[in-house]
């Protein structure tokens, strides 16, 4: 009996201690910056600008360039915000949207948390455009509102790009090019190159092929050779080849693209998809439907992570199959395009 009573007392003490430790841990939870390569820097965020984030860790200030930031987790942010971020990272956008919907904006007192919340909302909306759940106009409006309110956010250039993407989906290439043009102001060559590639893509979509090739050529002519810059060059190469294919010029494009595909990591889904789609365009221009089909099938079956790329491949496959008399396959492709990417311009293209 005596030992039993003592046991209860000890258990209670343990419980109380654990609770106290938990509370203390909660009060002291640090901020974290997660970088593009997956590293975490924990500490207290001291300063944020559109070019960098300064975090004080172990008494020292560490400056991380904004383009290296994958995301920021604030120590005192609500767990729902954290959960939404994780879901976005896993591309579970609908669930992320639902989780964000459960956060009451007025309950967010801290400015930096409000900023993160607004950014995640814009990201979710941008990603829902492809499926048609959100109109590009609404996504653009949300992103614009974020940019106006948070001019110094480290997500600034990301948001600028999102704004351009939404404008392009709205059919307003001029605005898109304007937005992408701002990426030239970023202090990182890769972002500048990305801006040029995106402008090239927008011009290509508008049929201004000469001008688009000019933009891609600018990227290809740059001397930067970091992996990130090479990545942009791959995208430029794909865009350029697609433009030339549209004008019936396929000389040497195919072998160069094939070589580039082989050199590109299979895990870089976006670049692989762009290269394969461009390869498909070249084969189409060469009147080689079978190889064109194989190239687009690469995107459809292996490199389908990016909605825009996948939608383009589906659109092309539908046309190829239609021409080849494979009606059922063509209908399936059209249905997938409408169901998954009904909001993209590919789904609306005749």
């Amino acid at each position, binding site marked *: 009996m005596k030992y039993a009573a003592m046991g209860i007392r000890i258990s209670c003490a343990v419980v109380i201690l654990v609770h106290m430790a938990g509370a203390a841990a909660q009060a002291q939870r640090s901020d974290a910056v997660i970088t593009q390569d997956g590293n975490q820097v924990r500490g207290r965020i001291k300063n944020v600008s559109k070019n960098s984030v300064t975090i004080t860790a172990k008494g020292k200030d560490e400056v991380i360039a904004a383009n290296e930031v994958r995301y920021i987790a604030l120590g005192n942010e609500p767990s729902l915000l954290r959960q939404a971020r994780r879901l976005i990272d896993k591309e579970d956008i609908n669930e992320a949207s639902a989780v964000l919907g459960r956060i009451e904006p007025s309950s967010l007192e801290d400015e930096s948390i409000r900023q993160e919340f607004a950014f995640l909302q814009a990201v979710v909306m941008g990603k829902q455009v492809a499926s048609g759940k959100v109109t590009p106009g609404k996504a653009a409006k949300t992103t614009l509102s974020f940019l106006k309110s948070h001019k110094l956010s480290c997500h600034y250039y990301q948001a600028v790009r999102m704004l351009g993407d939404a404008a392009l989906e709205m059919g307003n290439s001029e605005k898109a090019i304007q937005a992408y043009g701002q990426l030239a102001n970023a202090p990182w060559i890769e972002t500048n190159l990305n801006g040029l590639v995106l402008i090239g893509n927008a011009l290509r979509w508008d049929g201004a092929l000469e001008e688009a090739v000019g933009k891609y050529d600018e990227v290809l002519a740059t001397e930067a050779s970091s992996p990130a810059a090479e990545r942009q060059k791959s995208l430029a190469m794909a865009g350029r080849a697609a433009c030339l294919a549209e004008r019936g010029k396929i000389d040497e494009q195919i072998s*160069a693209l*094939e070589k580039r595909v082989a050199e590109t990591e*299979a895990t870089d889904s976006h670049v692989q998809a762009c290269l394969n789609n461009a390869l498909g365009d070249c084969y189409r221009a*060469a009147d*080689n439907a079978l*190889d064109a089909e*194989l190239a687009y099938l690469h995107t459809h*079956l292996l490199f389908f992570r990016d909605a825009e790329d996948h939608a383009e491949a589906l659109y092309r496959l539908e046309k190829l199959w239609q021409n*080849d008399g494979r009606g059922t396959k063509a209908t399936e492709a059209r249905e997938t395009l409408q169901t998954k990417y009904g909001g993209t311009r590919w789904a609306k293209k005749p």
Partner: protein
Amino acid sequence: MTLRIRENSIALIGWVLLSLCLVPLRVAAEEPSADFLRQLRQHGFLSQADAYLDRMEASPFVSASFQQTIPFERAVNLAESAKTCDPQSAINKMSRAYDQFKLFATENPDSSDFESAVRWQRNVRVQLARTQVALARSKDGKARDQLYGESLTNFRGALRLFNAEAERLKEELADLQSQPNAADDPAELERLGQAYLESRMTAAAIRFEMAEPQKENPRKYAQQLDLAERGYKELSETYRRRVVGRHALFLRGRCLEELGKKQQALGLYRELLDPSEQPPVMVNISAQAAARSIDCMSEDPRQIGAAIDVGEQWFQNVKGSDYDSPEVMQLRLSLGRAYCHRAQTGGNSRRMQAAAKKYLVPVANSDLSLQVEAKELLASFESDTDVVSAVEITDDVRELKDYNQASRSAAALLDRLKTASGTLRLYQSRLSETEDPLRREEIEQGLEVAQEQVLQDRRLGLAMYRRSLELAPRDLPAEERCRLLYLCSYLLYHDDQYLSAVVTGEFAARRLSDQPSARSAAMLVLASYFKLYEERKLGSPDEAQAISQNLVEISRFIATRWPDAKETQEALLTLIRFMAAEGELAQLQEYLDRIPADSPRRGSAELIAGQALWTHYQRLRAASADPSTSVSSEALDQLLERTHQTLQAGVERMKSTGKTSSLVLAILCQAELALDDGDPDRAHSLLTDTVLGPVRLAEQQDRTTAGLEARIFKAQLECQLEQLAAGKAVPQREFDSTIEHWSRSLADSPDKNRYVRAAISEIRRDLKRQLDALPQRAQEQFAQALTRMLDQVRSDVQDSTLQFNVADCYSILGESLRAADGRDSALANKLLATAGEMFAALSQAAANGSTADPSLRMQIDMRTARVMQQSGNIDAALDAYEKILVKRNTAITVQIDAARALQSAGDQGQPEYYVQAAKGTRRSESSGKNTIWGWEKIARVVHAQIQRQPEQRARYEDHFFDAQLNFARCRLGQALAAPPEGRQKYLASALRIVNTAMAAYADMGNWREEFEQLKTNIEQAEDS
């Protein structure tokens, strides 16, 4: 219950189990190539997967290890494609796949895919046997016996493979268990144990399946089942508590059932009946046992009550919610069937029917093949309103409370539907006639609205007719009731709800067959079955088989019930079309004979049958070229005669009705048949008949030849070639006109590129044979006409494959003319020069990497070498061979071609090349060895290969004899070109080479004669 029905499910169980454990366990490869192939297959892109492998074979961008596995991957494609084709094609494909896996495993024992290849070999062989058994069921007589015999051979082969695998795994397990640290790797132990059990289970399943092909011999049949039963018994007793043991127990029961030991089987099933507290896989085994118990017991009418109790008890005991598995659905069907029997034989039929309905409805609504029987059972006791229960009634239709009101509304709606359908057709015809884009857009909008209207009206009409049936008074005349059901079936058919159309139409046709609408309803059922068959024949061959039986059944019903009606002949015509498409010629003839000779349908039927027979003949004749097939020339002749008679009868009968597409096609078939029969004059007169000649009609662009133009002019071209070959004159302008029409018909085709590609490829394939058959003058005439066509194609193609084929046509033409006319033929020189130019451009493109098709690169170099050699430019030819051999030095056929080119240069007055042909040339700076080997080294390498792999002798020995013989010929050539004092050493060497070859191989086949002849030549040279 026959073995066949049960066999289906046991084969399914076996196959599912086999799939679980034996679906190739290839380790996921890292390369995107492997991933891409896997994805292509998963999504059914099998021809694309083949094309992809073609590309990868020569691609510099994939790893060497992947390239090594290409033959394996090709075999996988073949095996996968067998899953979605008709049984006969599946058998052919699986046989080829089996051979390819076997060859791969033999040639690549160190490959990472070796084990997978062996596994595929086992799986494919057992599946091949199963498909042969399934096909045998639909045949009779010799065909069936042959298939059963072949299936037994394959089953035995598979059994050996599975037994060997079980033995291997057993040894591996024992080895692992004997090691002191065996317990450190429990996962490996578990994997090996599982694989071992699965091999044994499959072996037992094969023994069971081997019973059916031996059913004609009761003693062997029983022996086989007994063997299987013992196999299952051993497994069930050894592994009593494991899933495999329970499964074996159930299958043992199946064997006992087949042996007629029903009570013993029921005793075993009883052990499995309790599904409570079981994991899902056990629940499914239990459901199977319950279903079999019910089926067994239901055979005795006195036991139906007990059978029903088994099923009811099972559903009471089962926990969890997995009620939709195929096994549970099968149990529902068995229980529903038992209730149906009870309803027919016992009292209280309404209550029994209600209970049956409870179990059958979920099965009827499932997408399993069981749904057909469930629907039939439901239809057997359902009322007319039940058979249209699939039709949804909307709330506004439910407002209709009175039969007259409902039927009037339905009739009014039907009128509206007719008007809307008319509008739809009008829009469709306007659209096809209008080219103005603005007007087209307007029409398309109208078309869309009309389509929507028709769809809505059809659905509403269906709902109203169903409501009418619900509200119909009991004394509604049968004629009216039948008409309502027919209209429902009609609307369901046009709404693409074929299965529901069958259920409704069949009710009207069979139950109310005295009524006027019943015949039309029966025709709708026939049409619906036809559609269903078309839908399912690729995806679900088993279901398609069941549907085809129903199709034949309803046709027979129509023919018997209304023997004199025009619908009967229509039904027979449908059956003839069906049998023609399926290649079932015996049945086709039977149905053809049932159409009276004076019937207006007889002619159409003969035309369809004749065309089917002609297609079948062509297929069989092509297959007869393969020595492994057993198509006798007598059978071919008989078939040809029958085809001729059927087409002739049909054409004669239909001539009076005027020209139709079908008649023109039949005449074209007659012309093709005459060509095949070596009678080009008859073919010519058929093709150019002034009234019905397909060539004349096509020249006038008559609509009856639409889509046939390319085939018509191809026949005409062949006809003219045959006439030329027979020494008859064909005016050049007629020849030119045919080629021009043919080219134009290809260009007018919807997909010009595809047709041009196909045509050039076809010309290329037959060109040499055709040229060889022509006299020299005719060769030139043909070559000139064809060159004009090739020049035209050449001027506007970019596709490298097409360019390659065109260049190859030039080179074949050039080579043939040169062979006939000697070196001075101006046309031959021109053709070879054009070919050389094109190949050089392609080779340059390949070197730059801009050739779209990398697999062509080697072929381009090979052709370049050949054309250069023909043009007398031996150095350029050697450059091309060297280019290939630098990359693929051991490509034996290329080495042989290169040596032959050198020897041929020696034969043409340049004896210095004999030494290179014999000893090789083009020394590599890096290795110091000759890149082009020459005959001596070829013979040495091939001989060593035969020594290493004696089983490969058949494959290599021709190369060996060829190389030795030519080596000796080169020596003889050197001797004859040398001054008299230097001859002897070459002659001695030549003799030595011949003697060595003859001593090394006693069995030289036809080669001995050639060696003997050469020996005589050498001896004569010595004497002179």
